[in-house]
């Protein structure tokens, strides 16, 4: 059974890599080289190697406590620990190779032993925590935001409060608000069931426009007060505020159209990650804004086409008849 799981894991990895477009793969490999080289340099001495080993084992322990397939493997495998330890060994392989190259073979052995030990950690049964309650003034239609506050409420609150506190320093406030929108990008990563999509009984374009208007309105309500005070305190940065507001508005619109361009009921949105990343970076590098605008238009059209598959029945001229 373990060899079957190993083959399955290797097939999963192969599929994951094959699905990444080549250009993105090249960029990713290039980007990963930088931390790879940094890790290699950091683990040249014993202290660095021990720190990396400790961080790695801590992360693997966290994974053991949170992995979603724990119960499945626990129930189907007589020796589930073998499957887990194989997974953690594969995940540790890059670090193990770097340690071996740096001649810290005994730390590599300790990591392997750690992987086996972590495999025996039992995952406690836990109910999904309800999280922070969303304020009542957020309308029901903004269920992504309500669910997002429940999931990330503490973090969003800290970032928003930091934006207010950060008004004491130039740029700090805007940096907090930028992180705030980065977290917001994650709340549009799940496709709702069709029943929810059809609940308002609107055709595709009206549905999309209403969603865009709703979230742009809510984000403006949140951001404008901070930006207004910032403008009063630092009037010489007026251009920055305007650029920031335009950038954030484009980004939020992109998050939404990206979601519905890739909408497939009850699934996680995996498409459009590179444009989303570009949009997030464009706040700091406005030169990317035309790229963001391009993807916004492209995904808006794709979203209208995609949503029509599910909402065509609400078009005024539609009927259940050929």
């Amino acid at each position, binding site marked *: 059974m373990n060899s079957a799981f190993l083959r399955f894991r290797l097939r999963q990895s192969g599929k994951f890599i094959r699905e990444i477009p080549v250009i993105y793969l090249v960029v990713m490999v290039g980007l990963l080289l930088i931390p790879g080289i940094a890790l290699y340099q950091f683990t040249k001495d014993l202290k660095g190697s021990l720190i990396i080993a400790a961080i790695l084992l801590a992360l693997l322990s966290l994974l053991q406590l949170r992995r979603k397939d724990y119960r499945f493997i626990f129930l189907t495998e007589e020796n589930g620990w073998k499957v887990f330890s194989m997974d953690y060994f594969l995940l540790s392989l890059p670090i193990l190779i770097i340690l071996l190259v740096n001649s810290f073979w005994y730390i590599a052995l300790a990591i392997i032993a750690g992987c086996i030990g972590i495999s025996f950690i039992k995952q406690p049964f836990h109910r999904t925590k309800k999280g922070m309650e969303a304020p009542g003034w957020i309308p029901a239609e903004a269920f992504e935001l309500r669910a997002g506050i429940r999931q990330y409420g503490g973090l969003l609150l800290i970032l928003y409060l930091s934006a207010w506190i950060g008004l004491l320093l130039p740029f700090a406030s805007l940096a907090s608000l930028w992180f705030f929108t980065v977290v917001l990008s994650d709340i549009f990563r799940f496709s709702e069931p069709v029943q929810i999509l059809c*609940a308002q009984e609107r055709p595709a374009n009206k549905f999309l426009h209403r969603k865009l208007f709703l979230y742009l309105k809510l984000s403006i309500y949140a951001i404008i007060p901070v930006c207004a005070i910032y403008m009063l305190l630092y009037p010489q940065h007026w251009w920055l505020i305007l650029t920031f507001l335009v950038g954030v508005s484009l980004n939020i619109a992109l998050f939404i159209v990206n979601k519905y361009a890739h909408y497939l009921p009850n699934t996680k949105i995996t498409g459009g990650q590179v444009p989303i990343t570009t949009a997030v970076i464009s706040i700091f590098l406005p030169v990317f804004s035309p790229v963001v605008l391009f993807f916004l238009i492209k995904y808006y059209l794709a979203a209208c086409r995609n949503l029509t598959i599910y909402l065509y029945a609400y078009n005024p001229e*539609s009927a259940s008849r050929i």
Partner: protein
Amino acid sequence: MESGKIHGLVGLNGAGKTTLLNTLYAFIRPSEGSICYNERPLKRRDIAYLEAENYFYPYMTGREYLNLFPAGKNGFETDSWQQLFHLPLDDITENYSTGMRKKLALLGVLKPDKPIVVLDEPFNGLDLESAHILTLILQQLREGGKTVLVTSHVFETLTSSCDQIHHIDHGIISHSYSREQFGMLQKLLYSTIEDQASDQIKKLI
């Protein structure tokens, strides 16, 4: 189908029950023919549809789910329904059991108060009390003049509530049975299974 009645739909797996319901709800466009309601083309706005599998948005509470659906002209007393079904509407749906999820989805279907109610396997996952409540709800919907179409693999749940049961086979309604003929339909369905499967089962187990 006669309006103001409860219609059952039975058939083997793959017979076309869910395909028919999805076509009624305009999830699938029919390849030919038309679907009419009151001598005009049927619109999705006329139908409330409960699917067999029920999904919800992550980290959404039951109450938030229900708030997404506009209430019909008679209103909708969420708290009263909550008491009837013992649903923890202020908890997130991740913590709901299968039966709770079915009940919540059912409430989402009842709230808009549509003239046609289509329920695909509504009894799945319900406890005895809830199944009986659902039977009473179906009867009340009929009293209110609604047209109800129900599918179920548990024959007794259909015979206790339906006025007519339609048997679907390979995508075609082969026959429709009135209440007086339900016994005949049961014999037809079970005798086929009895003949083909009982010898095989004896050999396998």
